[in-house]
C-alpha cells in the first residue's frame, strides 16, 4: 500500500492545482499543493503508520470547505496503513476530493468519495468543520469511533528582527489566502509595530506578485473595512491591491483571519501576550514565533515563522496523534 500511496501522491502533485483549490490563484494553489505533499515521503508515511498503531478497517473523512489540501495527508496515512477511506467532500466544491479519489483508485487504493452527508457504514470517522457540524456528525454516529476537529485559530509572535520576520510571515499569510486554522490571524510584537508593519507591507507586495490572491468572499467586506477603520483611527494602515497590513492596539485583537490581511498589535512582553490569548485558549492552534525560548501556553504547535501553514508529518493535530485510537469503537 505504501508504494501505491506514494505513486498516488506523485500523480496528484503533477496535477494542475488551480481548479482544485476552491478559488486560490493558480500560482498559490500550486505552492500550497506542493507544500502539502512535500512532507509525505516513504520515511514519514512509514513512521506515521508505525506511530499510529492499529488502524480501523474503514474510515470516513468529512472534509471542510476552505483549505483544499486538508484530506491529502489524512487519506495518505490511512491508505498507506491499509485502511479503506471514504471522503465526504464539501458540496460547494468537491474538485480536489474527486480528483484525489480518482487517482487513488487508479493506483489500486480503496478510496471512495461523495458529497452526500449520509456516510457509509465505517469503523471510524474523522471530521473537520465548525463545532456545530462536528457535534451533529458525532451525534448521528454514536456507535462509531470518532475524532472531530473543530474551529481553531493561530497567531504569530515577533520579538526579533522585523525584516527577516516579515518575509517569513508574509508567506504564512499568503498561503491559502489566510484560510484555515493555521493561518496567522494577528501578529503580536514586542518591537515597534510600525517598523514591522512597514517591513510586512514590503514583503506582502512581493508575495502578491509571486502568489496572487484568489477569489474573495464578498461577505467579508464589512469586516475588512472595520479592521481597516480600526487601523486608520488607532494606528496605521498599509494597503496593496490585494493585501492590507494594520497596526492597532491589542484591545482590538480579533481571532479571525481575513484574506491577505494581517493585523499587528504591540505588546509589552510575552506575559502580556499570554494574558491577551488566555480567554481564547480552547481555540488556539499554532503559534509562529522568532523567539524559540518563548513557549506560550495553550498552543498545540509552536513553530518558526514561515512554517505556520506547513505542519510536519506525522504530527499531533490539535494535540492528538493523527488517526490514533480510532480502532476502539
Amino acid at each position: 500500500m505504501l508504494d501505491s500511496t506514494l505513486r498516488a501522491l506523485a500523480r496528484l502533485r503533477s496535477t494542475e492545482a488551480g481548479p482544485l483549490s476552491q478559488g486560490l490563484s493558480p500560482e498559490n494553489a500550486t505552492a500550497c499543493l506542493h507544500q502539502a505533499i512535500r512532507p509525505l515521503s516513504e520515511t514519514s508515511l512509514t513512521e506515521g503508520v508505525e506511530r499510529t498503531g492499529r488502524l480501523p478497517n474503514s474510515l470516513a473523512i468529512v472534509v471542510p470547505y476552505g483549505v483544499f489540501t486538508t484530506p491529502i495527508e489524512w487519506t495518505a496515512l490511512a491508505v498507506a496503513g491499509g485502511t479503506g477511506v471514504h471522503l465526504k467532500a464539501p458540496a460547494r466544491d468537491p474538485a480536489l476530493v474527486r480528483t484525489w479519489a480518482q487517482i487513488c483508485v487508479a493506483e489500486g487504493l480503496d478510496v471512495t468519495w461523495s458529497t452526500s452527508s449520509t456516510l457509509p457504514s465505517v469503523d471510524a470517522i474523522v471530521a473537520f468543520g465548525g463545532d456545530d457540524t462536528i457535534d451533529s456528525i458525532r451525534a448521528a454516529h454514536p456507535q462509531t469511533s470518532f475524532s472531530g476537529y473543530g474551529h481553531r485559530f493561530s497567531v504569530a509572535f515577533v520579538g526579533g528582527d522585523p525584516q527577516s520576520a516579515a518575509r517569513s510571515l508574509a508567506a504564512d499569510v499568503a498561503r491559502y489566502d489566510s484560510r484555515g486554522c493555521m493561518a496567522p490571524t494577528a501578529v503580536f510584537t514586542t518591537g515597534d509595530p510600525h517598523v514591522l508593519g512597514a517591513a510586512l507591507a514590503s514583503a506582502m507586495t512581493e508575495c502578491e506578485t509571486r502568489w496572487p490572491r484568489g477569489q474573495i468572499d464578498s461577505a467579508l467586506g464589512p469586516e475588512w473595512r472595520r479592521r481597516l477603520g480600526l487601523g486608520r483611527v488607532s494606528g496605521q494602515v498599509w494597503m496593496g491591491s490585494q493585501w492590507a497590513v494594520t497596526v492597532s492596539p491589542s484591545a482590538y485583537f480579533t481571532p479571525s483571519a481575513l484574506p491577505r490581511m494581517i493585523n499587528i498589535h504591540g505588546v509589552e512582553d510575552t506575559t502580556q501576550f499570554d494574558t491577551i490569548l488566555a480567554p481564547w485558549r480552547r481555540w488556539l492552534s499554532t503559534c509562529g514565533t522568532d523567539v524559540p525560548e518563548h513557549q506560550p501556553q495553550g498552543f498545540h504547535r509552536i513553530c518558526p515563522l514561515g512554517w505556520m501553514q506547513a505542519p510536519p508529518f506525522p504530527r499531533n493535530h490539535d494535540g492528538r496523534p493523527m488517526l490514533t485510537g480510532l480502532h476502539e469503537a
Partner: protein
Amino acid sequence: MKERIRSFILDGGDFEETALALYRWQRANNVEYDRFCGDVNVRQWMDIPAVPSTLFRDLSLTSFSVADATTVFRTSGTTAGTRGAVHLLDTDLYNLSAQSHAERCLGPLPSTGLSLVPMGAESSLGHMCSTFVPRMPSFFSNTDGVLVGEAWAELMRAAGRGEPLFIPGTAFAMADWMDSDHPPVCVPPGSIVMVTGGFKGRRRAVPATVLYETIARRLPGAQVVGEYGMSELASQLWSVPAGTPFIPPPWMRVLAVDPWTGAVATRGLLRFYDLANHQTVLAVETQDVGVVLPDGSVRLEGRLEGAVPRGCSLAVEEANA
C-alpha cells in the same frame, strides 16, 4: 451646524450641499472619523466614507467630547454578542427627525397606545416610541418576552376608550403575541401597528407577509406599517402599508453597494447618509442587504449572508461573538 440640519428637516434644502458641509464639519469635530476618512477625495455625497456599523462596538465616533454625552443607545448585537454604543449630546435632532418623518408617512400619530418593544433607557427603539407616545405602557420584558395575556387585556381596555392607538412591536414579539387564541379586537379608526426588525437569532421565524396578514385579521381596523431603524441612525424609514418599500426621509439618502468592493450596485449592502446623524457620523454602512429603487425607497432583503467557512479557522461571526 445643528441649526442648519434642523432647518433642513423642517423646511428642506439642498441635500448635496448640506451633506458635504456636514461631512466637513464632522471631519473637523470628530477626530476618529477624520482619521477613518484619511486622504479620501470627496466631491459628492456618495463619496463620503461610510463607517461600518460594527465599528460602534470599538469606537465612540462622536463629534463632541464623549464625556459630555447625556444619552447612550446600545446596539442590539443581533449577530455578534458584543453591543455597540451610540453616544449623543442630546436627542433634539433625533426626536425631531423621528417625529417629522413618522408624521409625514403615517399622518398624525395617536396619543395613546401600548408597546411590545423593549423600553429600556438604552434602547433607541424604545426612545423613539416614547417620543411618539409618552408614558406608553410596555408589555415586553427582556427576561420573559411578551406578556401576552396582559397585552390583550390592555388592548381591550384601550380600544374601549375609542381613541386611536399606537402599537409598536418587534416582529418576533408580534408573532408571539398573535400566537395566543385570544379573539380579535377591533381597534379604533386611525390605530397604527408598527412592526420592526426580523427574526435573526430567534428560535423561529414567521414570514413577514403571514405576520402582517395575521395582525390585520386579529386587530381589524388597524393600519399595519413597517419601520426600519437602528441605533446608529437618527432617522428611520417607513413601509406603509407594511410589505411595501421603505421610504427614507428627505434628509436621508441610501446606497446599495457591492459588499466587497463598496462599488454602487443595484442590489447590495445598504449604506445610509443621514443628515440627522449630526453628532456622530452621517454615513453608516449596515450589514443589511436590499435594493434601492429609482425613487429612493428601499426594498429590504435581510441581513448579509455570513461568510462561507474558511477551512477550520474561526469564522468572523464566531470570533466577534
